[in-house]
């Protein structure tokens, strides 16, 4: 069990640390586009499509790790004042909702990606890139996010069962 939870953390961390390396290229290619368009008067055909792809990858593959690190905004006025045991129960309830809802997102994004694969959807820009690889990535990112939610939930279940106090 522990090894599975650790593996989920590890995958999310690796995914996030890999896509975060895209920030610098994103800045560089957008600058290149401005340079080519304004100075050389020869706008590129590919920067826009590629930039949007990099952006989407950052958003979907960073989500799980952000959740793991507690990076999403939480309204914790109430819960920080409660006794730890009670807080744990509330957390379990909260993540049940999360697992159900994001689970539906996993399913829906699979359909979303599959439809794109079926018709071989392409972008409407000059480059006309195929869209489905990115849609599959979005599906994969949501799966990772869901798994991270499940991992958080299972850890809380274990602490609740009193196996051993968990620090995360």
């Amino acid at each position, binding site marked *: 069990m522990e090894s599975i939870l650790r593996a989920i953390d590890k995958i999310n961390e690796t995914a996030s640390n890999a896509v*975060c390396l895209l920030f610098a290229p994103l800045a560089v290619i957008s600058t290149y586009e401005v340079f080519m368009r304004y100075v050389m008067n020869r706008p590129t055909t590919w920067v826009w499509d590629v930039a949007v792809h990099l952006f989407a990858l950052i958003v979907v593959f960073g989500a799980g790790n952000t959740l793991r690190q507690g*990076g999403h905004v939480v309204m914790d006025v109430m819960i920080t004042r409660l006794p730890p045991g009670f807080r744990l129960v509330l957390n379990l309830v909260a993540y049940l909702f999360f697992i159900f809802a994001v689970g539906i997102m996993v399913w829906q994004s699979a359909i979303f990606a599959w439809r794109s694969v079926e018709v071989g959807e392409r972008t409407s820009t000059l480059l006309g890139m195929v869209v489905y690889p990115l849609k599959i990535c979005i599906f994969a990112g949501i799966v990772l996010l869901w798994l991270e939610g499940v991992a958080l939930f299972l850890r809380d279940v274990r602490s609740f069962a009193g196996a051993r106090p968990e620090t995360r």
Partner: protein
Amino acid sequence: MDTGFTTAIVLSMFFFLLIIGLPVAFCLISTSIICTLAFWSPSALYMSAATVWDQSTKDIYLAIPMFVFLASMLEASGIAENLYKMFDKWIGRLRGSLGITSVLMCTIMDAISGLGASGIVTIGPIALPEMTKRKYSKQISLGAIAAGSALGPLIPPSVIMIIIAGYTGLSVGKLFAGGLFPGLLCSIGFIVYIVVLCHVRPKMGPALASGVTFTWAEKLTSLKAVVAPMFLIGAIMGSIYSGICTPTEGAALGAFGAMICAALNRRLTFKELYQASKVSIKVTCMVMWLLIGGNLFAGLLNALQVTDSMNQVLTYIHEAYGNFGLISVMMLIVFFMGMFIDGAAITVLTMPVFFPAIVNAGIDPLWFGILFTMNVVIGYLTPPFGMNLFYMKGITPQDVSMMDIYRSIIPYVLVMVLVLFLTWVFPELATWLPGTIDVNT
């Protein structure tokens, strides 16, 4: 089903999840998906995937990761240290000079960064120890940095304004321009407060000992420090307003420029870059998933006609109490939310409901956008849960308590509220500059 009933269920589910500590983004997503199943139609569930796609490929939002990355690179670039030394040489002899310096430096950072905490993380670690060394009162030093930094999203560029533009279709360029004067007025207000306080009670902000002097040559060479910030401001705002590029590309130019500044200061190592990227992805995902959740939620509220019924309430307020009443109610709601929750979340939650009501009432949406941003920015500072207060706590020594920070921030918040009222009474403060420019973005 009765709209009132569904409204009650949807909202209570959202608040329930919020209170039990689920991150706001996922409160929005969970409520949307579950209530779509319950009250709308399972076939509408595809929205949940389509929204992730829409939001994370939306051109205007591409500016968000760029502004976030720009802010992280600024921290690594070493620009702040150089600026600090320069200001000390020029105005070190004034009473309260370090407080004034902090505000001025934050204002410069605000003009480069679109986030609310950039000033704290770049300038705080340099200015705070120095102020402690020179025996500045905590009342001045803590507030000067936290408040100066909070102006980041008000003084252009601004991530909050990008979110507003995403929801409302207002021009990013005009919103940016509208925030300039109110933002600078706040800075001036902070400086006036510091100067007055230090003249009434000189002990709170002692000047440099009179023995210390700098030659004009030293002063003039120190001016080199302004070059890098000016270059960045030029790259971002100059490129946007000259029509060379879109705000998104302006943000990218800024981020690229910050990398160059870091390289020139010999700070651009892979380690720094990686570190900055890791911080950036966390902030980017935080904002983007809020936007995804907010969009899903807004879609649900529309479909269930909850937005309409909320609008009826707002219309009623407008009919009974006029524009003043309507804006007051909205401002109070935002101000109250600001005490507890992050600015991006406030924007995502309120804009879809507020904006149509503002347009219906015939109020200038641009002006409202600026008032709204000011209010959100004040929320970064209002206890008990102003974000900047926690960032401050993170960089201060142990002997500074949360109460010290609360106490020092109040006068600065009052200054901002005053400027908010000024902008309310004299809309030209926010609308004149955007009216003079012609941008297509």
